């Protein structure tokens, strides 16, 4: 089955990102396809490489990056939600006159159309959030 995953909550505060990650891992292990993971609302905070959790805790951001690298996942961060919350890649930082970017490897910033397309192209769209 082909899935699109929507992550609506930030890391650590809320379990949604952990649950979404575990779901992706399990689905891939069973041979399913993850068409896209779309990060929305505070979920965009899963995409900052500046995240520095204590060493004995899981690194939620790196975990997504690693999974993306291993399975060639499409991790998409909503541009409008990202701008509000200070998540930027090189282009976004330049466009908005910022002095730095913070996007983690494997993530890309794009529009909400990517979420709708995920719903159209996938057999199931699964939402993780509050």
């Amino acid at each position: 089955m082909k899935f699109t995953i929507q992550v609506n909550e930030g890391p650590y505060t809320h379990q949604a990102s952990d649950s979404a990650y575990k779901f992706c891992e399990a689905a891939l292990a069973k041979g399913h396809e993850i068409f896209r993971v779309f990060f929305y609302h505070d979920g965009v905070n899963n995409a900052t490489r500046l995240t520095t959790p204590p060493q004995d805790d899981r690194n939620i951001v790196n975990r997504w990056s690693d999974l993306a690298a291993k399975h060639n996942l499409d991790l998409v961060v909503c541009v409008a939600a990202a701008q509000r919350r200070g998540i930027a890649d090189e282009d976004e930082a330049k466009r908005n006159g910022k002095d730095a970017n913070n996007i983690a490897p494997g993530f890309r910033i794009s529009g909400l159309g990517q979420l709708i397309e995920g719903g159209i192209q996938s057999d199931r769209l699964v939402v993780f959030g509050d």
Partner: protein
Amino acid sequence: MSDEMMEGGAVKKFCYVNRKAPYGTIYALESLEVVLIGAAFEQDVSLVFIDDGVYQLTKGQDTADIGMKNFSPTYRALEMYDVEKLYVDKEALEARGLSEEDLLVDVQVMSREEIAGLMEEQDVVLTF
């Protein structure tokens, strides 16, 4: 739905379920942003308002004192985007002392059973 059907331009049924009050959290505003962008994809769109989500449609919203934008006029513009199917949970309205007259757009008020049936028919359900 098969890939063949998609290539043939088949339309999916998209349902946006709005459960939260318009202010206090950003879910309602960002849900509306998805609906507006999604309208360009010409899918079969329904909006459902349950729980505190019914407050999103109330008339006379005044956000001056909380320093946030009153985005409720946007619901009246949905018609121009061909988003015309708005469903509201009757019990949620009644529990909050509201009726259809308190809402700023035309909606269809439904029982929970009817809303459950509506959700059952959908291809994609996005919850906010």
